[in-house]
């Protein structure tokens, strides 16, 4: 399954190094993860993007991305190909993210980290730079509204929201990735969108 968004970035050294060192002693049957460098090249962008927007911290996202591919390689024997590689990797990333955000250490560094992502950093990447100044200001405001609203969501709502509206997974894929029923996924999306709508409408109400 090819990544949907963005160009694949070249494989990182750790993935290649892990693959080279461990393949020599490996006796397990062949899996798609044996060529870890290719898997990383294909899916690193997607995993990193999801973790970066979820944690809003570059360092944590980078660490968890590497950890995701390491875990995938170490447990590749359990990959039964009953789901896509992307779904399997995303499931590992989700578990790592959940474990990481539970710790007190994460909460502390979340407040103190210099690698934290601010909405102003992201707003510089709003497309259509050739558009008018007014359009760009409106787009900046829209981004800030969604950015703030996403921060208000619960961990599960945020995860499902990002999987749907950033990773563009359909409801069935989200259900497979999160292990939740589709109805629960839909319910979380409705609640997340309610928060987005409320934040979206509040400036209008203030001006009226």
């Amino acid at each position, binding site marked *: 399954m090819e990544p949907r968004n963005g160009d694949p970035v070249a494989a*990182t050294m750790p993935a290649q190094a892990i693959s080279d060192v461990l393949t020599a002693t490996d006796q397990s049957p062949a899996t798609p993860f044996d060529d870890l460098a290719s898997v990383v090249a294909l899916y*690193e962008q997607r995993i990193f993007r999801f973790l*970066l927007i979820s944690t809003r911290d570059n360092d944590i996202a980078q660490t968890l991305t590497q950890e995701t591919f390491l875990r995938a390689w170490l447990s590749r024997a359990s990959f039964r190909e009953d789901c896509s590689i992307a779904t399997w990797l995303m499931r590992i990333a989700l578990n790592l993210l959940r474990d990481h955000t539970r710790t007190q250490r994460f909460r502390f560094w979340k407040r103190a980290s210099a690698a934290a992502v601010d909405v102003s950093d992201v707003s510089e*990447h*709003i497309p259509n730079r050739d558009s008018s100044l007014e359009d760009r200001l409106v787009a900046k405001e829209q981004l800030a*509204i969604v950015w703030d609203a996403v921060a208000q969501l619960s961990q599960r709502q945020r995860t499902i929201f990002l999987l749907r509206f950033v990773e563009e997974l359909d409801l069935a894929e989200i259900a497979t990735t999160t292990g939740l029923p589709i109805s629960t996924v*839909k319910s979380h999306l409705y609640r997340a*969108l309610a928060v987005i709508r409320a934040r979206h409408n509040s400036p209008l109400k203030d001006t009226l």
Partner: protein
Amino acid sequence: MNPHLTDHLTHEQLCDMLLARSPHPLSSDFAALQQHLSDCPSCTMELANLRTSLSVFRKASNSYSQQQLTQLHINSTPTPSRTIMHPIYWAAAAALCIAAALPVALHRQSQSAPVSSASTINPAPSPQSDEALLEEINQEISAPIPSPMQPLADPTASSATTPSTSPSQRN
């Protein structure tokens, strides 16, 4: 729920439109929703605004994360030529060489000083100095009486003989 019976789209209907889960295009619900959207500028505007906001959020997130990952790859890949050519590395290397050479130079200097002083105290014997020394000794031996032991000129020299040195007087 028929949107004609309410003022605006319900939250679920709006969400379904955003989630691309709107009713089948041939169903009556879909026709009713489309009819309502064409008649209600408020719902149309809100739906369009939400779609635009979510699209901006997605595109900006994609672009930002892609740029960050590319930056991480660049930072994690060292460029030897740039690193080696950096002036601070040359300065550090020079300081290291000086720091290594200084103790050796000081040690050599401290060793050479005692040797030179020792050489002044005990000069190496040379044939010329030996001959001069022997000549001096020969001159001193050949002298009849050492000059410090010559008798003083005494006007009363006739009676000035010591008993211990005159055996004729003792006999």
